């Protein structure tokens, strides 16, 4: 139920982002991409004092970060480049880095996040903390050398990390989907597999992987097969069929989520653009700098 609510919120924010910033939005992979990120985030130990697990993603919906506890206004501020955004409008970011709630911002650099998350997991290991770093990626990223170096590092150092590989959206130059698990095993990782259609199953399997990683089994790869239908719709149908939920309740969830996101957008929309003088302070000067106050006069 909570899962449905979170998928619904993520979908509502996703739809809003698509409408408002469209192509220029932080990369997102269409409606199906809220799973597996949302159930994966749910499988983590979440905290708001910097003591929980850490989540990031390279593909999929940034709105999945809501599950980690980020305020939807913060995601919108980033996307709209508002003064109040954590990056002050300097970077769209998808969602911001906020390590108190275990969030590391995505970047448009395939592979790099694998290395960085491996380093975060390394810090858990070095400090003896019982925490896990989880990254959602897809097969396209696996072509990059950084992906390989990051995973190889994680493997050699046996760090508590989980890589969730989403097969929802394949590119023509992607390696065959079935190679992911083979590769995982070839690196000596734990490997897990689940159909992406059922978000509850995804959550369960990711949870197993997370707890394996936490208990010292090293890097775990979860292979999420492309869903055969929209996982959110699937879950709704399933809950309805099981009489676990009424049509009204479903509509209620959706409306509440839409209303929340609309309100967030209204608020953020009214917020001011960043002030260059503030947002770019300390980042040098533009133009000829003739007018800029020099520490000493420009002529003898």
């Amino acid at each position, binding site marked *: 139920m909570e899962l449905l609510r979170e998928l619904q919120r993520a979908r509502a924010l996703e739809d809003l982002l698509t409408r408002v910033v469209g192509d220029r939005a932080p990369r997102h992979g269409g409606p199906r991409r809220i799973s597996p990120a949302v159930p994966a985030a749910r499988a983590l130990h979440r905290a708001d004092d910097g003591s929980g697990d850490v989540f990031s993603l390279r593909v999929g919906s940034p709105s999945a970060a809501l599950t980690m506890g980020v305020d939807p206004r913060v995601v919108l501020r980033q996307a709209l480049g508002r003064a109040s955004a954590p990056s002050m*409008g*300097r970077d769209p970011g998808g969602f911001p880095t906020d390590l108190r709630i275990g969030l590391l911002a995505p970047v448009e650099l395939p592979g790099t996040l694998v290395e960085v998350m491996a380093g975060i997991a390394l810090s858990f290991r070095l400090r003896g903390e019982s925490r896990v770093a989880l990254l959602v990626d897809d097969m396209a990223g696996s*072509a990059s050398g950084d992906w390989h170096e990051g995973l190889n590092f994680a493997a050699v150092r046996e760090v508590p990390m989980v890589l969730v590989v989403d097969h929802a959206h394949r590119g023509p*130059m992607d390696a065959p989907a079935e190679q992911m698990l083979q590769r995982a095993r070839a690196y000596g990782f734990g490997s897990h597999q689940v159909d992406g259609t059922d978000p509850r199953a995804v959550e369960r399997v990711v949870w197993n992987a997370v707890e394996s990683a936490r208990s010292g089994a090293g890097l775990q790869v979860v292979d999420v097969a492309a869903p055969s239908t929209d996982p959110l719709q699937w879950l709704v149908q399933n809950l309805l069929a099981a009489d676990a939920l009424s049509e009204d309740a479903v509509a209620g969830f959706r409306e509440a989520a839409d209303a929340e996101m609309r309100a967030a957008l209204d608020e953020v929309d009214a917020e001011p653009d960043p002030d*260059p003088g503030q947002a*770019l302070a300390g980042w040098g000067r*533009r*133009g*000829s700098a003739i007018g800029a106050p020099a520490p000493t006069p420009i002529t003898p």
Partner: protein
Amino acid sequence: MAETLPEQVLHTRNREPVTFLEAIAEALWEEMERDPDVFLLGEDIGEYGGAFKVTRGFLEAFGGNRVLDTPIAEGGFTGAAAGAAHMGLRPVVEMQFMDFISPAYDVLTNYIATSAYRGAGNLPLVIRGPVGGGNRGGPFHSQNVEMAFFHTPGLKIVYPSTAYDAKGLLKAAIRDDHPVIFEEHKGLYRAPHLRELLPEEDYVVPLGKARTAREGTDVTVVTYGLMVHRTLEAAARLQEEEGISLEVVDLRTLLPLDEDHIVESVRRTGKLLVVHEDTRTGGLAGEVAMRVNERAFEWLDGPILRVTAMDAPVPYAGVLEDAFLPSVEDVVEAAKYLARY
């Protein structure tokens, strides 16, 4: 060969003016027709036709052995291009955005740039792709990459500002026996005012030669890429409003730098302003300043100044990006200061 040519390579054949982007597409097309060793590789350049559609229709026309989609692995396919170049092929690599050349930095600077020097053979290859800001693309889709490579002996860097030059320089780059990095400013790709009618016959613009984009007497402005047009705007304004005459030098090739052309102009005007969209510290202006000091100091009647972007990653928000990028106003102000110096 193709029965029906893709639209973006037809214009010159039909005696119609072309955009900057079409000029590039024509250069690729004609070089591929001319030389069977030329082939293209890059992300989504085949069926999809490239992020900016430069190569739309090329796969259908030239087939999968001449137009190769690649995995997202810029180091890997740039290295593979080097291997193909060792065997006498002439690969033209597209970076989807030039920002993504970074993963290929190692193979470009250490392997490709040094091959001829190491006695391992010339590597005729071109790396081309879109650069530059102004599109609200944020830090990873807006970079200028010249200064990442300007310091590397063995590489050439080209950065055209007009459709004519883009076509002629790209052809020259493809025919060159050494590796060339070719930067295409996104703000020029479809700019209507850059449409021009190009010669029907084959032509090249030689690498390593600057051009005088505007003659003038008071201040030399050395610039390149999109900033050529910003500077020409400033020049027109200064002429009209202040009677100040700017000479605008469009470098076209950044490496090797056409030192003689710059020095000759500065010796006439006695003043030098360098304008680049790229960030300030460690930008190209520095090298120009050194060359002019070495060869034209006595002719200088004022300090060498520069107009550049700020020292930051390219910001995402529109107001910030506008505050970050150099403007016509900046050029006007600096040139006026120098003219009156």
